[in-house]
């Protein structure tokens, strides 16, 4: 079990969550600080690389669209948001959440109101998908061929 307070884990949970769910949870945060942009939301592409098999050379799988932004809240905390896709509002909310998480005064409420529920929702999503996939599972096996 990873610690969801860990910044990287938290950013991953936020980025993978559906935008609607994130917005819904963020609406529960009462005191949202004022902030300025260090980098306004911008959309670009990222080359995804991967390997197949253990011997594999890295190859380019393809490009993914991503949107990123960086903001600074009024007390100087810097939050970054990077999400797949073109949803600038989601990137903004992720960045804001990242900043709130670093501020001692707001970290607890963000953890309990936003990141915790999103982590649970993600777990349920994954479990549901795993169950759906498991229904079509085929087990391959070989009968003893009697050569011995």
């Amino acid at each position, binding site marked *: 079990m990873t610690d969801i307070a860990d910044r990287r884990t938290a950013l991953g949970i936020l980025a993978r969550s559906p935008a609607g769910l994130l917005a819904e949870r963020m609406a529960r945060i009462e005191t949202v600080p004022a902030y*300025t*942009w*260090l*980098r*306004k939301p*911008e959309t670009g592409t990222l080359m995804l690389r991967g390997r197949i098999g253990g011997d594999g050379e890295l190859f380019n799988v393809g490009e993914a669209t991503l949107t990123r932004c*960086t903001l*600074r809240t009024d007390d*100087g905390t*810097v939050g*970054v948001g990077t999400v797949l896709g073109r949803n600038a509002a989601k990137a903004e909310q992720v960045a804001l959440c990242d900043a709130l998480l670093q501020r001692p005064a707001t970290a607890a409420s963000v953890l309990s109101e936003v990141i915790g529920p999103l982590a649970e929702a993600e777990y349920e999503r994954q479990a549901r998908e795993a169950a759906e996939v498991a229904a079509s599972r085929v087990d391959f096996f070989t009968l003893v061929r009697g050569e011995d």
Partner: protein
Amino acid sequence: MHLVRELDLSRLQPGFAEPVGDAQRCFRGVLDALAHPGTIVELADLPAPPPGLGAAQSALLLALADQDTPVWLPPGLRDAEAGHYLRFHCGCRLTASLADAHFVVPASLAALPALDDLRPGEPEFPDRSATLVVEVAGLATVGALRLRGPGIETEAGLSVAGWTADCTAFLRENRRRFPLGVDLLLTCGASLAGLPRTVRVDREA
């Protein structure tokens, strides 16, 4: 040598307010300055530069530098706010090797590196050379430097605070190596002047 340090965002200032339009205006300014040596281009609405860089100097780097153009900063700025600023906003590498750098930002005209240490370009690709971006204390279109060459109808005057005989010698040697060589951009606050490798410079007695 590549310097990989964790990016410190805590004191970082915003870059261009409108990245695309602002970068294009700066790029146009550089084109004008290099096409007409001896003219001074005024850039408007520049973001506040990080400590150690001038407004136009930092804006030019925002417009020109990217992940394919290593930037050389003086050692004192490299690990300071200016270095973090450029790494964040341009995505550029900072390099400690002058020979590797596409953009070189000397601390002053007095600290111009030796021409031999800079990328001169290749005979097939003279554009693969270094560009120097130097902040000076003053720029004016009338003055001691007489400029001639492409982009100047007869002769243009330029006065640069802190210009020394060494700078003149630097440009003459640079001119001698044409088509290889480096291009020099002088900035002073929001002002910009270009001294491309084609310029011939004389100093008035």
